[in-house]
């Protein structure tokens, strides 16, 4: 049975290799299975993570996120634009946020990592 313990937001700020991102996602998945509402926000170089090649282990790990009950995946619009990326370049469907929308997002979550 699932209980709601609160809203957690994990922020991915850097591009990480497979081993590192797997460790981070272990925490995300553990939190999700403990009943937290988990969302992810990709900012700065973290957005490169979502633009990785479609074939390969990294993309397999990322595309599995929706199956682990991760509520929502957000991306900072400015970070994408700075890196000349468009939402359609990404391997997951995401919600793009402006800075003021991110402020609101932080307030909506009990804990932000």
């Amino acid at each position, binding site marked *: 049975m699932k209980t709601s313990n609160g809203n957690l937001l994990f922020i991915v700020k*850097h*591009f990480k*290799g497979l081993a590192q991102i797997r460790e981070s996602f272990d925490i995300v998945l553990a939190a999700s299975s403990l009943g937290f509402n988990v969302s992810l926000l990709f900012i*700065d*170089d973290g957005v*490169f993570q979502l*633009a*990785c*090649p479609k074939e*390969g282990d*990294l993309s397999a790990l990322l595309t599995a996120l929706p199956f682990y009950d991760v509520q929502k995946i957000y991306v900072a619009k400015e970070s994408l634009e*700075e*890196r*000349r990326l468009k939402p359609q370049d990404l391997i997951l469907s995401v919600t793009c946020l402006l800075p003021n929308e991110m402020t609101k997002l932080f307030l909506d979550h009990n804990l932000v990592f």
Partner: protein
Amino acid sequence: MLHIIRDSFSESARLKNCLAVYAPQDVLLLIENGVFCALSATESGSQLEDLANKQQVFILTPHALERGILDRLIDEIQLIDFLGFVDLVVEQYPVLQW
């Protein structure tokens, strides 16, 4: 001399600091997250474009491939593999890793 950059433009000011002390015969190599510096139409990309028109700028292909940006790099950059990396280190000694 070989300068090696391993951070992206937003992770650190290392590319900027490196270019500030760059000598005309020096060679630059981008590895790990440093490969993001060579994205076309970005600020760091156009800086490297200018540099690559005069001097040699290399990028480690497997690391660019892994990060999905191989088709979005500045045209002037030269692609090398791990064996090319070893050759560069031997030819361009000393090596400065930023």
